[in-house]
């Protein structure tokens, strides 16, 4: 079966899941698509060479702004999801002028600190945000219809995959790869480094905001601890590392594999599944440092079945 045919089958199976799967499976895959989208955005930013720890922060900002728009201004939940993404994008644009002057670990730590700052500010505005106990919305998105929510998050994930694929075929791909490889060589070749970093930071933050907003509307609930949870940073990061960074296929495969493994482990060992889960991540990163997708592609290439698959995986 060709690669294209396989992708089409995967999309059809995923799209038709609500027709034959029960609410448990829908909820598992709903969560997987949330993390897959976040993982792709984290990876897209990493392609510039900047390791962002701000994923949970922008996710939370999108969630809170959407929840507030619905609860306080009576905005339609679907519109609030768009506006949540816009808000996260505007915040990223303004912060970008400060944080994108930093590089490497300084950028990472600052984005991590910003996540804490967002959570602290929201916790300290109890009249507006409900403070530490959070806010419950009058109704969940699509009145909590599991199938509709699933299709919504599936569509969002497909959109993010589309953006990631477009990016890897665009002029921007050359700019951000050049910046990651050698910033001085990039600047000397005419790459406006700050412009491209800002574009990528705003793009990825907006998507994180949209996903956060969807998450808030789906569960009709926001609360600082839960909404700014480090899970929204660490799980996407682990998924991209396990699947393979600097690619679209890596975070997608990583999200599905880790998502399914984590659910399975929860079922067979309710206590201690996180230890095994962590161990799997460590082992994959240690023994397949370029990720699952490139490892498999290389094994296939070695058997002579797929030529140049490793480079193809790199490009996709």
């Amino acid at each position, binding site marked *: 079966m060709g690669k294209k045919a396989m992708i089409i089958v995967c999309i059809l199976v995923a799209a038709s899941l609500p027709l034959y799967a029960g609410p448990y499976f829908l909820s598992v895959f709903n969560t997987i698509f949330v993390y897959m989208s976040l993982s792709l955005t984290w990876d897209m930013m990493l392609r510039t060479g900047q390791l962002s720890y701000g994923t949970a922060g922008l996710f939370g900002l999108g969630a809170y702004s959407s929840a507030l728009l619905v609860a306080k201004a009576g905005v339609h939940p679907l519109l609030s999801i768009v506006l949540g993404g816009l808000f996260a994008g505007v915040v990223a644009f303004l912060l970008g002028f400060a944080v994108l002057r930093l590089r490497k670990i300084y950028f990472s730590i600052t984005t991590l600190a910003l996540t804490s700052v967002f959570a602290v500010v929201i916790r300290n505005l109890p009249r507006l945000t409900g403070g530490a106990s959070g806010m419950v919305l009058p109704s969940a998105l699509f009145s909590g219809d599991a199938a509709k929510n699933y299709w919504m998050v599936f569509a969002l994930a497909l959109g993010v995959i589309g953006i990631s694929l477009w990016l890897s075929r665009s002029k921007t791909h050359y700019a951000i*790869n050049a910046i990651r490889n050698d910033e001085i*060589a990039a600047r000397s070749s005419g790459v406006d480094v700050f412009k491209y970093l800002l574009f990528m930071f705003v793009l990825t933050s907006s998507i994180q905001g949209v996903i956060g907003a969807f998450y808030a509307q789906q569960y009709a609930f926001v609360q600082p601890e839960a909404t700014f949870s480090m899970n929204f940073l660490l799980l996407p990061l682990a998924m991209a590392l396990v699947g393979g960074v600097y690619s679209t296929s890596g975070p997608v495969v990583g999200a599905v594999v880790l998502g399914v493994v984590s659910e399975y482990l929860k079922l067979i060992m309710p206590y201690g599944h996180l230890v095994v889960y962590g161990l799997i991540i460590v082992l994959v990163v240690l023994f397949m440092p370029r990720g699952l997708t490139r490892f498999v592609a290389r094994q296939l290439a070695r058997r002579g079945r797929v030529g140049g698959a490793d480079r193809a995986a790199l490009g996709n």
Partner: protein
Amino acid sequence: MQTVPLLETRNLERRFGGLLAVKELSFSVGRGEILGIIGPNGAGKTTVINLVAGIIPPTGGQILFKGQRVDHLPAHARSHLGIARTFQNVRPLEDFTALENIMVGALFGRGQNLAQARATALEICELIDLPHYDRPVDNLTVLDLKKVEIGRALAAQPDLLFLDELMAGLNADETREMIAVVRQLQRREITIVVVEHIMAVVKELTERCIVLDGGTIIAQGSYAEVAANERVIEAYLGKEA
């Protein structure tokens, strides 16, 4: 009417803490000229390139390109204006093939789209004789990496090209091949500044050269003139006891 030089520096200065790496440096390069900048190690040659290309800001003086002040502009803006450079220690973009490396110059130095950049890069590969352009750069020889450097700079279609110690690390045969490549560029009427440590290369390629020592010009003129200059001999060989 007097013609404006393509590049002119006026009392250029760069200080690194207590070290004055470049001081009161004034020189100009005319259109179509091939200028050599020579000098012993630590003379400030690479610093001059970094200053003109905008990698580091000057601490004093002015840089004029096509008659306009450019010393306040970031590196990428100077690239857009037509200043390109290669690096003494090659800086290939490692996740790219040789061709993609060269495309970067065309995409961002000249603002071409992907199809145009690819066509430009292929044309350049032919010009500089780089047959292995589809290989990842980590599979290339030093000579080919140097060619990728030139190719990337050339793809921006610059008016002024700085070649920073292009021959460093090359053997005699490779040096000859590289000199042939630079001669190809001469035919394209690109203004070139050859920054070299090796005097013989400068003799071979340039019409005029300036000699730097301690960040300032100690001699200038034709190769024959500077090679006979006592201060130059002293700078290279040391003072006789």
